[in-house]
């Protein structure tokens, strides 16, 4: 199933898939939002927005609208047990 970062639940993780050019600001890429890197959702703000993620070791908060642009491959948590 295709998911975006915005659909992650707290504690859930995924791997960033290739994304279309131009969508994300370069700043986000520099912070580690690159294809192949792992994203974990850490916290969600009280009004569901913004969200707080750990990507590639960077702890950052982004608005939900931007999170919807980042496609993910979900890591199945059960395989980690």
């Amino acid at each position, binding site marked *: 199933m295709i998911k975006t970062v915005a659909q992650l639940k707290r504690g859930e993780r995924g791997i960033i898939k290739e994304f279309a*050019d131009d969508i994300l600001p370069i*700043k986000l*890429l520099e912070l580690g939002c*690159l294809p192949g890197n792992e994203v974990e959702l850490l*916290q969600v*703000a009280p009004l569901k927005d*913004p969200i*707080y993620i750990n990507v590639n070791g960077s*702890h950052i*908060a982004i608005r939900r609208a931007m999170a919807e642009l980042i496609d993910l491959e979900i890591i199945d948590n059960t395989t980690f047990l």
Partner: protein
Amino acid sequence: MSKQIKVALIGNPNTGKTSVFNQLTGLNQKVGNYPGITVEKKEGVCKLPRGVKAHIIDLPGTYSLNTTSLDESVAVELLLNKNDKDFPDVAVVVADVENLKRNLLLFTQIKDLKIPTILVINMADRMSRKGITIDIPLLEEKLNTKIALVSTRKKIGIEKLRELITDYKSLSIEPNIDATVISPEYFDRLRSAFPKEDIYKLWLVITQDVNFMPIEKTLYQNAASFATKSKPELKRLQQKETILRYQFINGILKQAHKVDLNAAKGLRASLDKLLTHKVFGYLIFFLILLTIFQAIYVWSAYPMEFIENSFASATEWVENSLPPGVFTDLLAEGILAGIGGIVIFIPQIAFLFLFISLLEETGYMSRVVFLMDRLMRPFGLSGKSIVPLISGTACAIPAIMATRTIENWKERLITILVTPFTTCSARLPVYLIIITLVIPDGRFFGLSYQALTLMLLYLLGFFTAIISAMILNKILKIKSKSFFVIEMPNYKLPLLKNVAYTVLEKTKSFVFGAGKIILAISIILWFLGSNGISNEFKNAEEIVTNKINISGLSDFNQHAIASELASYERALNDSIIEKVYTIDQLAIADSITAKSANLFEHAKRQEISSFKLENSYMGYMGKAITPIVEPLGYDWKIGIAILTSFAAREVFVGTLATIYSVGSDEEETITNRMAAEINPATQMPLFNLASGISLLLFYAFAMQCASTLAVVKKETNTWKWPMAQLIFMSVFAYIVSLIAYQILK
């Protein structure tokens, strides 16, 4: 003396770059602005081994050389411009040990500019706790550089860094990565078009405006015939470059950098959970706000009182010990009053920035932004606007200075423009005196009308700010990319040294920035109020003395003196009955005569200065604007008070005291005097419900604060915004007061 080594300190935000800067330079630093923009420029001098010195520039924090903000472009511009007088001999990249991967992105970019580059890995004291091990020699070899492992907290590694800077000539200037592989064909064409230029530098110059604005482009514009690529294409190449760099970095770190994940996490996760909780998060934030309020309102009252008293006695000393004349007057009433008006704000500014820098140093501020962002967004504000808006209730000046943390220019500008609507502490004396005068004493559900009115005024200020923000958000057509990315740094204990530097710096920048303008305005006001051309002004003393000789003091002063004498006499008699003093009737009569003469002299002086003010330039201006303020229910005296209180709202009370020639600034006396005032036009009390409400509304909305205008000018670097603020707020205040008065009268 040998030439200083020029060093540029650069790094990601939150890497402790400023701590490194403070450690290197100590107090040998100065903060200014880059010419033409409001980005802070920090420079300092550092002593190195073997008698060498280094001139160090602390560049604004940036994640890469692909600029997205004004701050970042400053950093990049310096590194790209070999002709800049500050162009560094050596760049020091400060990285945070926990985010090494991301920090190295910037490092490799600078290295590829062929500038000698030293890598500082800061916060080394956290390594063992976080389970991090780094093979430094291997990393040095792979990155082709020298590394200093530093902990500013534990004060280790700074000596090593000094050594490395001294020996900068031995650093390799070989680039790390060949960025041209992302599009060999494009870079080949570039190279043949500009054979003399360094290819990576050229690429950075070309891509500067992809994300932001053009900077140093003139060099290459002539050759614009060269077939360029479209912005989306360039942007795609930038992304390719970023990915390429990360591949390089990941490859190296896999060998040289190990993290034992079990050692990490823990405290951070639980603190995050608590501080961003939907109930406790807001509660904790609210409690912190209360503390800040308390500090700004209550704690700073003591130093402020001390400052006020010191300036009052300094003024008195000047007036009494210098020969009377224009110069003494200028010194006492113009310059000293002006400087006093600046210094009085220092306690509030210092307290506010003490708290703000504490919150920032600990990493808590990012959590507040995270918590508030969604709530503020509908109003065109950002989560980061909350701090200025709240501190505006103490004073708009530090509040506007605190907007610097908002990166998005539009959100920052809106915050600056609406902050003056929040009810600052200078409005309080004006509100209190007018509320006492015109709002009846009754109670409503146990709450006094007067307290309710005050509360309504606070709410009015806050909601006006929010609504204007919403309107401005619609009107302002400012294109600023509104992506919101905020780093959530690790929690840290604040470094007191950093906090102290911040407080010192902000206070200094207020005193010397806005201070100059405040001083100038108070000198102008003094001049207008103490000079006049008419005969009445020149012969004021004579005219008033004659008038008093013929018809005595004004009714109000006669009554005031009589009642004061009566109570004085009573007090004397009481003390005799209680056997505190044993004096005869004659001595009592003497004492009363002396007191009476004293009071008479005082009242006479007051009437003279009142008459002088009435006939000064200021008085004429007050009278000239009478037709304008009459529809609001004011007379020329209130007109003058509004004019003079343009310097600062609280001056309103002092001016009325002078005009009504009441002997003291005691609130009660002025209130009595004002209550007795009759409006000549209506023969009704001048201060009634209608004119009172109209005045309250006027002070709620009007931009009656020269200091705020000065700060807005400083922060926006143009007179356009403070002028717009002044005109809009004044017109709006006028219209609202007009409507209120015409309806209520």
